[in-house]
């Protein structure tokens, strides 16, 4: 989309000096938010950070690799409950979070195997089946789900004398920032280019030497690692877990976030995560209308702006950059 003249320029995270200014301003705003914004904003932003991690992972899979998945709630549940059980055994949280991600990633590889044979709609059903099977296993097994009362998780004690809400905000902000940068690195490396090649034409990709099996499975593994970590973070944030947090609707929410935010864009994933969190908050008076808003937005996005919110934003930027020419 931008004109890129050298590989070095391609690898740059920020290409225009002005972009540097507003990205800097945006990050500064986020850092200052807990001190000046109302507590309610801080709380919402924390949830958006948590979702950003999962949406980024889902976007790597759907947007970059072109493999559809309706089973993200399954990975979310696996990540969250792994984290819950590990932290109950007294494992420190960084290791528990890593464990949640890795176990979800292993299941991702398992679910990825059908993707080697199945395409498009068939893969959608296979992953959907997985998501719901995981949910029902958790519902039916009290040992895994922690019984009727749910699984309670000990929250991290705030450090540096911060309030709990502020601490949670910075904690999740740093983790979301880490995963955002990691995603930028993945997509500008060989791996990311291989993903995009698999999406655009898998046979052509195999002909020019991309190992199809490896990169499809890798994409599933990375995506579900992200989702697993999101599950762990969510559990840590809420302080308790129950299977009903991970219904089919949760998969749809993550999916909607990717589509509305914009396929194959990191900024779009963040916008999508913000969208799916903010819409239910704005429409809190009419809770049952939230799916309608999602649905209408999907129809509008797919028919008029296939690149989603990011595409719209990108075109606006382009317009102002070239102003008064067009």
């Amino acid at each position, binding site marked *: 989309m931008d004109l890129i003249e050298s590989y070095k320029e391609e690898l740059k995270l920020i290409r225009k000096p002005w972009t540097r200014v507003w990205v800097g301003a945006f990050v500064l705003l986020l850092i200052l938010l807990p001190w000046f914004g109302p507590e309610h904003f801080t709380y919402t932003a924390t949830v958006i950070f948590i979702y950003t991690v999962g949406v980024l992972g889902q976007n790597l899979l759907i947007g970059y690799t*072109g493999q*559809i998945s309706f089973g993200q709630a399954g990975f979310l549940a696996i990540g969250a409950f792994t984290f819950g059980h590990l932290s109950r055994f007294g494992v420190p949280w960084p290791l528990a979070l890593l464990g949640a991600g890795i176990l979800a990633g292993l299941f991702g590889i398992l679910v990825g*195997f*059908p993707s080697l*044979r*199945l395409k*498009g*709609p*068939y893969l*959608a*059903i*296979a992953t*959907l*089946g*997985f998501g*719901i*099977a995981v949910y*029902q*296993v958790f519902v*039916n097994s009290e040992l895994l789900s922690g019984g009727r009362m749910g699984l309670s998780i000990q929250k991290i004690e705030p450090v540096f004398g911060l309030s709990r809400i502020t601490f949670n905000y910075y904690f999740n902000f740093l983790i979301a920032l880490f995963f955002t940068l990691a995603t930028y690195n993945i997509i500008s490396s060989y791996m990311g280019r291989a993903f995009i090649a698999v999406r655009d034409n898998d*046979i052509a990709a195999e002909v020019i030497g991309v190992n199809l099996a490896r990169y499809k499975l890798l994409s599933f593994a990375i995506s579900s690692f992200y989702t697993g970590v999101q599950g762990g973070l969510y559990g840590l944030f809420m302080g308790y877990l129950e299977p009903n947090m991970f219904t*089919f609707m949760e998969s*749809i929410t993550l*999916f*909607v976030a990717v*589509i509305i935010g914009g396929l194959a864009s990191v900024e779009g994933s963040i916008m999508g995560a913000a969208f799916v969190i903010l819409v239910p908050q704005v429409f809190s008076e*009419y809770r*049952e*209308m*939230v*799916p*309608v*808003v*999602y*649905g*209408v*937005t*999907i*129809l509008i996005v*797919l*028919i008029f702006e*296939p690149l989603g919110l990011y595409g719209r934003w990108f075109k606006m930027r382009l317009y102002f950059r070239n102003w008064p020419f067009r």
Partner: protein
Amino acid sequence: MTQFLQYVISGLATGSVYALVALGLALIYRSTRILHFGHGDVTTAGTFFAFTLLGLKAHFIIAFGAALLFGAVLAMAFYFCVLIPAQRREATQLGQIILTVGLGLILQGLVAHFGGTEPQSFPFPLSDTRIYRLGGLVVSQLSLGTFGIGLLACLLFYLLVQKTRLGLAMRATSENLPAAQTMGIPTRQILALSWGLAALLGVLAGLFLAPALLLDPFFMLEPFLKGFAAAILGGLNSLPGAIVGGLILGVSESLAGGYVSIAFKNTFAFLVIILVLMVRPEGLLGEEFIERV
């Protein structure tokens, strides 16, 4: 042995409902290559429409007929107002599937808004508690009726597809779209009709499920997913496959619930999906995929 037959019979009744849902999904997939993720919600909307009419003291036959028509019109309107504009803008196959997800979300929200989220019981002419005894077997009036209507609908559908000019046009359109167009078949109308028919079969299933379950905006989610499993099991491309798949799934689910564990009953269908897709993705009666490079 009696117990075994009992499980088989109750499985056949639920299986015929799955078969109706699966038939609709297979019909849409065969003609437009779209997996209709909003099918369950179209069905729910139709059933709620019948419920509203019944609340206004309409006769059962009128209410049910109107509901079937309502579902069909809804699906056809979606095809004409959303899918065709999207296809004109060259939406990908994945994009079209996502559009059906969008339709499902919209309908789900609207049904919840206008119908309420409280579970309600659905008045029905056939009763769930009146039972007939055949030897040692017990059959409720409702499941007997469900099975009968399911078989009748499948039979009528078969006659429509195989014995009429309209059915010939439908088969031609799903076989080869450009060829059908050059032969002068109004393919767009035929495809819209397929969508309408599929929704009609779905609403029929919903009407017979609603008295057995309680009516709430999400009551079709599970039967819809099972219908999906049934369609996959029989082969998404094959209409007889959908019926066979539905009946097999219904019976085996009932047996699994009876002999293994009742908790296992619901998970069973999803294991079936994954297993079938791993071992034989084209399904029992489907044709094998051959892809040109």
